[in-house]
């Protein structure tokens, strides 16, 4: 696997995800500045967490229009896997690669704690490290994680098995407890919780390690 991590102004989980990817693949990923126009040779693209452009206008709105995103969108549509975590999920929605939007948390609080998720779909390359129905603990840290889509879209996501993860105890008001969704083709995953922050007993557990190992195994 040859991952590339896109770095936006005010990304702040780019290093964490690079560490997690290196742990799973044995080599560091390419770090790509958002102002570049073409990706290096890659078979796995990551949009990391953070507060790109200070969350101005809407979270992820400006980053979704960054020069590099044209190539990201083109590659995603051609089948290259793309993972968006937290702000990366917001960017994927704003870029139109995933349906719906992430609204302000229902209780208006910035939520920063470890949450338990239920793996709803273990068939995707992103969730192959888990069993369907398994519970995993990942930290969340966001202000705009309240997943919203119209009922028709939500029904379609559920009907097609595109809800990858659900919150056990919904921290942000997300529709139908959705924490992470897949695109139609199954090669794009957006999720609010941070698997890259759960890759060592020192950080609280190894569920993130299983996530990235599963990914690397599925991509190999």
């Amino acid at each position, binding site marked *: 696997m040859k991952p590339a991590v896109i770095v936006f102004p005010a990304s702040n989980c780019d290093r964490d995800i690079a560490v997690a990817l290196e742990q799973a693949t044995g080599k560091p990923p390419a770090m790509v500045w958002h102002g570049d126009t073409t990706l290096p040779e890659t078979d796995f693209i990551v949009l990391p967490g953070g507060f790109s452009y200070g969350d101005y206008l809407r979270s992820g*709105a400006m980053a979704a229009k960054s020069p590099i995103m044209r190539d990201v969108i083109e590659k995603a549509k051609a089948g290259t896997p793309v993972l968006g975590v937290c702000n990366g999920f917001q960017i994927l929605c704003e870029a139109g690669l995933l349906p719906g939007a992430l609204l302000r948390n229902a209780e208006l609080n910035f939520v920063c704690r470890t949450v338990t998720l239920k793996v709803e779909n273990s068939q995707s390359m992103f969730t192959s490290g888990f069993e369907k129905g398994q519970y995993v603990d990942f930290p969340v840290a966001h202000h705009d994680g309240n997943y919203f*889509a119209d009922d028709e879209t939500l029904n379609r996501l559920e009907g097609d098995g595109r809800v990858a993860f659900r919150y056990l105890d919904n921290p942000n*008001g997300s529709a139908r407890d959705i924490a992470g969704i897949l695109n139609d083709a199954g090669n794009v995953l957006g999720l609010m919780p941070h698997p890259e922050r759960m890759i060592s007993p020192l950080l609280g557990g190894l569920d993130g390690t299983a996530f990235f190992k599963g990914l690397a195994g599925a991509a190999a």
Partner: protein
Amino acid sequence: MKAKITITLKDGVLDPQGKAIERALKGLGFDGVFDVRQGKEIELKLDETDEAAARAKAEEMCRKLLANPVMENYAIEITA
């Protein structure tokens, strides 16, 4: 020309900020306040002299960046 773009949340989209404002207004004794919704307004100047052309440009800006059609509506006002 000047464009004033008002962006509002669509009906049915939860607006926790509007709800918090509503609670604060009630706390101040403003009874009978309901359905408070918070939006945003963007003002910009365009080097266009034709109103229709200015409106078309502002429309395109809304579609491409300023508003998210999943959750927001927008209204454009063009003035000289």
